[in-house]
């Protein structure tokens, strides 16, 4: 149980019991005395809001994804931490990541904590069915569809898989991988001709995807069950499969479209709650968690990778090593395009995701006409951008004022 005098570190990351225990026993070793408390994203937001509204503060340090920290800003739950940022200048956190931590303000609102991305996991059983001339490390979406088709014909089942279930991260696939690979954009070119081509291509991919995809939350389960042979997901959500049978799988970069091989880095950040009972302790904890040693321990224990300049040790467990290689392949692909997590959407992040998922649902699942659907959904997107006044983020070109939807 949390003791009253301990610093409370509330996190939406590393929630499963064994991961949380690793945080307590290994990662936080040598840090100021801390109660590590985890919560799901939605109750997390509610709790932060409640503390602000009741003006009764128990939480000092907050650890959450970029997109989960963002809604805390408008509700006034975050404390600017430029002083902390200044004291860890020598850690080598890339400037781009530090900028994300400003959440569109002039001040540092969070410090990058750890990073991950989305990759494709390939069961080696699928390799014989690769289309002629295709390189598994440099696939295109058309080749993925073709591959799925051959697997379907040869194994009698649709073996591609996407986490499009209620808790799956499918919206990130559409925003971070699919859209920018075809349009070099996430928002501005939402209803472009390229987007139309993209949806038609993706329909062919979906036609070879396991029909249970709309129920998958974590792809490691259908991968381990052998239901799916090729899957896209967040590295933390395929880790169990890779650790259980590292010899059975490859981790490769997601497919490319005409505009490149887009990927979306995921950033978890550490923020100090406004009115934190122990601001000093929280700042010390941030220093501890961003030490290169701690970052390496974090990578090998839980499979989230360093944000600081640190070389991964050679003795990583085989599963984590596969992930590290997969992430490296994704980030260093010749045609790599970086798509950033949405910035400046405040509490509209959920509705932003909904635009993509609704579009998918209408075009792919309900077979509505592509052009008309894109036009209608672009209106919804426009109203979100207008309401939040969020300027464009990569890969869209910087904008004056709200990011336009052409």
């Amino acid at each position, binding site marked *: 149980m949390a003791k009253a005098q301990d610093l409370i570190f509330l996190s939406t990351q590393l929630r499963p019991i064994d991961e949380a225990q690793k945080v307590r026993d290994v990662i936080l070793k040598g840090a100021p005395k801390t109660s590590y408390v985890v919560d799901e994203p*939605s109750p997390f*937001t509610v709790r932060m809001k409640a503390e602000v509204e009741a003006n009764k503060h128990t939480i000092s340090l907050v650890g959450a994804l970029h997109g989960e920290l963002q*809604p805390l800003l408008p509700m006034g739950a975050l404390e600017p931490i430029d002083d902390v940022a200044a004291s860890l200048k020598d850690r080598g956190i890339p400037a781009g990541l530090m900028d994300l931590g400003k959440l569109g303000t002039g001040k540092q609102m969070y410090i990058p904590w750890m990073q991950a991305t989305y990759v494709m996991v390939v069961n080696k059983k699928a390799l014989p069915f690769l289309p002629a001339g295709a390189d598994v490390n440099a696939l295109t979406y058309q080749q993925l569809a073709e591959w799925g088709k051959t697997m379907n014909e040869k194994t*009698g*089942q649709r073996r591609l898989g996407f986490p499009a*279930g*209620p808790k799956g991260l499918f919206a990130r696939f559409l925003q971070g991988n699919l859209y920018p690979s075809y349009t070099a954009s996430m928002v501005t070119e939402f209803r472009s001709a390229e987007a139309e081509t993209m949806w038609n291509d993706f329909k062919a991919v979906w036609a070879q995807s396991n*029909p*249970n*995809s*709309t*129920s998958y939350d974590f792809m490691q389960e259908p991968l381990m*069950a052998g*239901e799916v042979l090729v899957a896209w997901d967040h590295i933390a959500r395929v880790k169990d499969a890779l650790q259980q049978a590292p010899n059975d799988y490859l981790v490769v970069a997601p497919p490319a479209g005409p505009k490149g091989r887009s990927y979306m880095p995921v950033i978890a950040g550490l923020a100090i709650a406004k009115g934190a009972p122990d601001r000093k302790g929280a700042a010390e904890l941030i220093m501890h968690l961003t030490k290169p040693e701690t970052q390496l321990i974090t990578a090998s224990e839980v499979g989230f990778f360093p944000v600081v300049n640190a070389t991964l040790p050679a003795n990583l467990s085989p599963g984590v090593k596969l992930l590290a290689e997969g992430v490296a392949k994704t980030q260093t692909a010749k045609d790599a395009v970086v798509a950033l997590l949405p910035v400046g959407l405040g*509490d*509209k*992040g*959920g*509705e932003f*995701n*909904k635009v993509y998922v*609704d579009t998918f*649902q*209408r075009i792919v*699942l309900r077979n509505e006409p592509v052009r008309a659907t894109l036009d209608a959904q672009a209106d919804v997107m426009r109203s979100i951008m207008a*309401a939040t006044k969020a300027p464009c983020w990569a890969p869209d070109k910087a904008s004056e004022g709200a990011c336009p939807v052409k």
Partner: protein
Amino acid sequence: MPTSRWLPYLLIAPASVFLAVFFAVPLVQTIVLSFDGGTAGFFGNYQRMLGDLNFNVSLRNTFMLVLTVVPLQMMLAIGMGLMLQKMQRGRDVVLWIWTIPLGVSDLAAGLVWLAILQNTGYLNTFLFHLGVIDGPTAWLNSETPVTLFIAVAVAEIWRSTAVVLVIIVAGLQLIPKEFGEAAEIFGASPWQKLTRVTLPMLKPSLQSALILRTVLAFEVFAAVYAIGGRNIPVLVGEAYVWQRDNQNYSVAAAYAVLIMVISLAATAVYLRLLREKPEARA
């Protein structure tokens, strides 16, 4: 004595205060929230709800589930209750077994049925051994809406028929034996006895059971969510998604208000249809 006049009010005060604080206040807050449309105006949230691509589907699914599940449950419960009444021995044991699902949470019940019906579940294993199917067959995804609907309906019937059964059994016990015996003496067939004596005497229990089950059925969610995820959207599920995923509490509140209005309307209909005319009781 003045105290005796106030005593009843004093005794109901804790319950009333409790309900007012934990029910009426959030209710009013929800209604206020649902009309707080920001720039979109007074009915903005309702417009968004009505315009959402899942609204019609979830409304249709919810009504279809209620209209399928509740009548089947009523028939099953009446049948089971009548059979229990005829039992001489072991009646308590059977009643006890039949009411086990009462003790299972709806989410757990959903997960039980998921374990049975999923690709690698018990049903497929059984069918595979019988040679009916030659591998894992999917029953619960968006491409198999019919089997998905049946699965959810079966789970709901399994889970919540016991509530109806308990009410019906209690009602049956209140019917004096003499009525049935009198009907027999006048030569009534078993069917006539059921429709002319038992069911009319059971009306108050049927009314309570119907209201309770229908209101709960409109709130169906956890079992559906466990079995079908969002492949079979229902109203409460949409409220949950708007609140949790889309983080728009106002549209979620609009859904909540809609569900409340539907439940109240259903209750009013039952109260009217099954009303006991005062003279009929004399």
